[in-house]
């Protein structure tokens, strides 16, 4: 557990970057610090590993005041992913990752083999081991940064906008892998971002900071969306809060209707027969995984990939209300496609039924 107690940082020159910040970051959870540029996120993060000393207040890690610990030892026990990567340009990927193990005095062979394991863990092909950072894509560099921070298996990870320098598609991929990794590793993570959607997606709890470094609100993502503490937090959360909040509510027993399907490659007559007058017909593959929709009346030949309408999203049974609602809204037939955990079709659901379920949900109240 990391506990900040009334922490204040005033830089020489008088900028108050952080003011009276009290915050508990529970062990094994992801605490996200989010807020506009210059609100003191990096400063807060760096006070935890003593790269910056607080002007006043105390910071405890597992009950011990960090001011009483040797900064070097403290830092080697905390993985740090720096804003912008900060990889060593003169060291290969493998040696970058092996930095902290080597500092801890492990022998070179063991450090390298652990580094190779970390590469695999973060999804880096082993062929990249001997490359230098400037020979990697942005996404790969970010992965190396994460692998390097993980290398000595520190219980605490400090991450400063680790995914900000990559395009949205890669970012989403990195976020998903990060969550999968955390489910496996259970580290105590302090994650800094200025992207509220990232904060909501990744955080077990989210601390929203104002410029000046005061805490505006500390809450779980769902609660934050449902009940922003003030106008600043509400503005910062942005639009569609109600809709985004549905991502945190599981869709329990939605009424699922069976959906007639054709297999890709079926001829037009079969499709028209199966559709039995419906405008849109769902197409699946051999394994019963949904591929898209066709309009049988428009078909001139067989059902091919080119004839498919792919606009609809697919939700998992037992997933969130948001995913189920989105599946219904995005489907050209307005019937939302639901699959099981293996991706096989279960049936379809209508927006109306999802809304009924939403209205039945008891009003969430801040805990």
């Amino acid at each position, binding site marked *: 557990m990391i506990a900040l107690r009334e922490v204040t940082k005033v830089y020489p020159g008088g900028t108050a970057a952080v003011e009276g910040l009290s915050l508990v970051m529970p062990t094994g959870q992801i605490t996200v610090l989010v807020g506009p540029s210059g609100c003191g996120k990096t400063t807060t993060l760096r006070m935890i590993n003593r790269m910056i000393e607080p002007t006043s207040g105390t910071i405890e890690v597992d009950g011990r005041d960090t001011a009483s610990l040797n900064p070097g030892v403290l830092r080697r026990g905390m993985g740090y992913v720096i804003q912008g990567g900060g990889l060593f340009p*003169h060291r290969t990927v493998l040696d970058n990752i092996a930095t902290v193990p080597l*500092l801890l005095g492990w022998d070179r062979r063991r450090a390298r083999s652990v580094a190779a394991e970390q590469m695999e863990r973060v999804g880096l092909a082993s062929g990249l081991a001997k490359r230098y950072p400037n020979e990697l894509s942005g996404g790969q560099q970010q992965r190396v940064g994460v692998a390097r921070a993980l290398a000595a298996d520190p219980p605490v990870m400090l991450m400063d906008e680790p995914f900000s320098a990559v395009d949205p598609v890669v970012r989403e991929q990195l976020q998903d892998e990060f969550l999968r990794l955390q489910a496996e590793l259970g580290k105590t993570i302090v994650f800094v971002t200025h992207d509220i959607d990232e904060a909501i997606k990744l955080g077990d709890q989210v601390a929203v900071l104002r410029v000046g470094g005061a805490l505006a609100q500390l809450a779980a993502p769902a609660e934050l969306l449902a009940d922003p503490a003030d106008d600043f937090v509400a503005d910062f959360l942005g639009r569609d809060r109600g809709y985004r909040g549905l991502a945190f509510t599981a869709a329990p027993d939605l009424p699922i209707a069976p959906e007639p399907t054709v297999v890709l490659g079926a001829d037009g007559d079969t499709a028209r027969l199966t559709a039995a007058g419906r405008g849109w017909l769902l197409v699946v593959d051999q394994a019963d995984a949904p591929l898209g929709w066709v309009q049988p009346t428009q078909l001139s030949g067989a059902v091919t990939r080119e004839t498919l309408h792919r606009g609809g999203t697919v939700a998992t049974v037992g997933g969130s209300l948001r995913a189920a609602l989105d599946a219904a809204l995005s489907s050209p037939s307005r019937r939302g496609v639901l699959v099981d955990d293996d991706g096989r079709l279960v049936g379809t659901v209508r927006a109306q039924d999802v809304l009924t379920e939403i209205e039945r949900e008891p009003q969430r109240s801040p805990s």
Partner: protein
Amino acid sequence: MKWFVGHLGQVGDLLVTHALLAVIPLIIGVVLAIPLGWLAHRFRWLRTPLVVSTGLLYTIPSLALFILMPLVLGTGILDPLNVVIALTVYTVALLVRTVADGLASVPDEVIQAATAMGVGGVRRFFTVDLPLAVPVIAAGLRVAAVSNVSIVSVAALLGIAQLGSLFTDGFARNFLDPIVVGIVACMLLALVLDLVILVGSRLLTPWTRSGAAA
């Protein structure tokens, strides 16, 4: 040409002396310039006085410096030590700024990352800062090497034997051959030194050869 063939051994000896007189100060100069450059980089208020005062040293005419050395050091006028020390002064003069610039060229986030991982102090200097400053330092070193080769020849005026002696000799006897041979040998020496530093720096910095953005 005939003169050159006849004096091969002598020219060879002069070349070796010349090379030593140029290279030894270069090495001592780098070793001295690194801590000075570090001071100039680390303590911002020291930078201007250090860079300006060492820079001023470079403006002392070499002949004057060679003549002054025995007075300052108490050495004999023909002692090669005078040349070595004078050229060390020039090398330091050229390199203090270069080293400071090289250290300043290390990206801040790399230093922050090193610090965040608990790499600090002397270890950080030798494993992160200095290796990353090599390309800039090597560029300065190449300038210093070429400059040293040319300044050494001035010492011939004081009677210290090296390739420059071929100029004074040829001039005194109104004989062109040794002068031409001296010039060519000096140029070759400078080129070879330049190449050695270039190759050495490439070998020390394999990461700069690869990738799009170095």
